[in-house]
């Protein structure tokens, strides 16, 4: 089965071709069938490979496909590396991807009052891009060398751009100011970027990181002479002994790529705006899979990162600070999807913290559980949007639990998992990361635990405001209805995974059961000197950390309950009394404005000056048009010789003949 892994990539590509070429003509029902089915096929092949690896006890299978390029001694092989890490990623991508595809078959179709179905104008295009994304992501995780990873890396970026801007004709959306009660001026908010602009923003910001990644890949090649993982990792320790600086540079450059793709400080700004895309896209690309590419890349390159402790420490701190930073912004956002977007940035920060302290298995565990519950939350938010005619502002929701029982229940489960409520999947994965961080550097643990408290609070702020209390917009409330089978199916499956996903990585001291995730990923770190970095804390310390996480999560939820259900006047009063901080958070620390002033505006000015000064004036006017004008003027002058009178020509001929003859006579 592992030898058939190329099919996991080929199947979605078949879907791309089918949906892209004939999907439009065959109608949305056929596309709804083909789109998810090809992803399911990939998932089944991946599952088969998993079983094969488990039964045969193999660690890695190399699937050679073909040689892409051979230039002298430099060859690029297209091989698939099927090992424990890539299989985990394949299963997450295709598994969650399949559910989201199923969900999208309903989400992208609107049902009107009389029950008529109105599929999106570009239904087939949507599934073409979604399938293309799955194929790209699989190329990224299955490649056995950095070049294939880079190809996949860029391809997922393109898909992200295409899908964020999917509704490319929608304009910017103004946001209602936040009302702070009588006699206080409301806090004004910036309008939400249009999908087209958001897509470009995502693409351009990612480009900054991708340059770093590309340079990293170049440096790997010039240092090691190969791009294959195995070759690079074998030589890594020798190179590190001779020139440790090179390893530092490689890891740093690769990490810059990860910062862009996985939305960390300072390149996270594109992710919140990516919410302009359709919700399944937000769930699949901007929460569950693509943004985890950076984590995967670092986990894959763990041999290199283990040799660069300084860079690893930087990663851990950037992750921890991003986690806290994004969580504070999420506290006051009013757009349901944006709250989830900032929580994604924050959770990715946890994962970077984990890989930074060497807890690669912990990071991959959190990546997996996060894929489950964050996809669930996004799909829940999408279900709400679907019911409310695309309204996403939580201030216009309220009381929805009466109308949407399944969405409400599953959103609760997702919220509990995200908040790290005890025994939910997110609890175990977050706790593992926090324990590792505590062992490495307690300050990281402090940042992490504060973030955990904030996470619990803002998650349940969204839950309580959207689903509980009184309806704030009666007309919308009356319109609301539970979504159909495809949506609720995806929600229920993901909710189940969000509850039980924690079983993959139970802490050793709690139930005396094996930590499946750690064991599964063990071979990945076989070459590391320290082996897998699992926490080896005293039992009492572990228990205290465990209890702290649990208490913090419950406290966060309790405070949210107090603020938004018991006494809804508290948050408003709090916002009034801390107005400067509140408006700073509501405006996302003005980071977008800062970037606009520092990078975008000067960049645009430079571009405009170049366009007008160099291109239009110098090249177009002076060089191109100028040359044409000079030649035209010469022609004009010479054309006066052409009088149009035959006798002038005849005379010229005679004179010419005379001159020639006299020359011959007189010489």
């Amino acid at each position, binding site marked *: 089965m592992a030898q058939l892994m190329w099919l996991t990539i080929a199947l979605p590509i078949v879907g791309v071709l089918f949906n892209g070429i004939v999907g439009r003509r065959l109608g949305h029902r056929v596309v709804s069938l083909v789109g998810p089915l090809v992803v399911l096929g990939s998932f089944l092949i991946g599952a088969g490979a998993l079983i094969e690896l488990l039964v045969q006890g193999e660690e890695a299978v190399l699937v050679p496909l073909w040689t892409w390029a051979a230039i002298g001694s430099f060859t690029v092989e297209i091989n698939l590396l099927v090992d424990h890490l890539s299989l985990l990623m394949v299963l997450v991508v295709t598994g969650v991807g399949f559910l989201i595809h199923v969900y999208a078959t309903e989400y992208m179709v609107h049902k009107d009052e009389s029950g008529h179905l109105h599929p999106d104008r570009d239904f087939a295009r949507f599934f073409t891009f979604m399938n293309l994304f799955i194929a790209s992501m699989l190329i990224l995780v299955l490649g056995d060398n950095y070049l294939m990873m880079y190809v996949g890396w860029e391809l997922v970026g393109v898909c992200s751009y295409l899908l964020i801007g999917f509704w490319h004709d929608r304009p910017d959306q103004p946001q209602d100011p936040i009302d702070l009660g009588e006699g206080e001026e409301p806090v004004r908010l910036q309008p939400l970027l249009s999908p087209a602009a958001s897509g470009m923003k995502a693409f351009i910001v990612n480009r900054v990181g991708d340059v770093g990644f590309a340079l990293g890949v170049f440096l790997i090649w010039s240092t090691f002479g190969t791009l294959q993982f195995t070759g690079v990792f074998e030589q890594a320790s020798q190179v590190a002994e001779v020139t440790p600086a090179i390893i530092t540079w490689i890891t740093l450059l690769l990490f810059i790529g990860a910062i862009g793709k996985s939305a960390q400080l300072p390149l996270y700004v594109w992710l919140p705006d990516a919410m302009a895309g359709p919700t399944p896209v937000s769930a699949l690309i901007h929460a569950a899979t693509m943004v985890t590419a950076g984590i995967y890349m670092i986990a894959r390159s763990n041999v290199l990162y283990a040799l660069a402790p300084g860079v690893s420490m930087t990663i851990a701190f950037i992750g921890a600070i991003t986690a806290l930073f994004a969580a504070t912004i999420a506290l006051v956002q009013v757009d349901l999807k944006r709250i989830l977007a900032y929580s994604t940035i924050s959770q990715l920060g946890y994962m970077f913290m984990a890989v930074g302290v060497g807890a690669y298995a912990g990071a991959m565990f959190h990546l997996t559980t996060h894929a489950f519950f964050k996809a669930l939350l996004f799909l829940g938010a999408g279900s709400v949007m679907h019911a409310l005619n695309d309204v996403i502002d939580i201030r216009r929701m309220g009381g929805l639990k009466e109308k949407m029982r399944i969405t409400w229940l599953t959103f609760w489960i997702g919220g509990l998992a995200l908040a790290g409520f005890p025994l939910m999947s997110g609890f175990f994965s977050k706790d593992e990361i926090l324990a590792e961080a505590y062992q490495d550097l307690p300050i990281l643990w402090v940042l992490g635990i504060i973030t955990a408290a904030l996470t619990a609070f803002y998650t349940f702020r969204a839950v309580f405001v959207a689903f509980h209390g009184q309806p704030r917009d009666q007309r919308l409330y009356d319109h609301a209805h539970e979504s159909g089978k495809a949506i609720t199916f995806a929600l229920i499956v993901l909710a189940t995974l969000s509850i039980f996903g924690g079983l993959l990585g139970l802490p050793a001291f709690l139930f005396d059961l094996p930590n499946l995730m750690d064991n599964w990923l063990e071979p990945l770190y076989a070459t590391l000197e320290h082996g897998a970095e699992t926490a080896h804390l005293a039992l009492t310390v572990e228990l205290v950390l465990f209890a702290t996480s649990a208490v913090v999560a419950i406290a966060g939820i309790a405070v949210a309950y107090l603020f938004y259900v018991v006494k809804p006047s508290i948050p408003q009063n709090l916002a009034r009394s801390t107005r400067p901080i509140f408006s700073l958070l509501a405006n996302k620390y003005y980071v977008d404005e800062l970037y606009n002033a520092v990078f975008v505006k000067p960049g645009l000015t430079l571009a405009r000056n170049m366009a007008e000064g160099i291109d239009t004036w110098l090249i177009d006017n002076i060089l191109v048009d100028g040359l044409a004008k000079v030649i035209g003027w010469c022609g*004009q002058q*010479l*054309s*006066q*010789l*052409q*009088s*149009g*009178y*035959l*006798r002038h020509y*005849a*005379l010229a001929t*005679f004179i010419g003949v005379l001159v020639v003859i006299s020359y011959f006579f007189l010489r």
Partner: protein
Amino acid sequence: MIDQVPVSFYLLLGAILFSIGAGGVLIRRNTIIILMCVEMMMNSVNLTFVAFSRYLDSATGQIFVFMIMAVAAVEVAIGLALLVELNRHKRAVNIDEINSLKG
């Protein structure tokens, strides 16, 4: 009889005829007259050929003359056809009105 007329006379006559023809081409405006003048220049050359042929006692010049007369007949046919077409298009025989190539 002809022996008494020196060859220079023929050449002079040829030169005069040629000059009259050339002058006509340059000065006259009627296209048909211009064509006639061209013919005259050609015939002055024929005269010169024949004169030299006799003077040098060689047949080459006379062969040339037959060639030129044949070509001239063709040329006149084409030239007249062109003039007729021009006349149809432009309704003009005045060469100065036919100046669409003017720069």
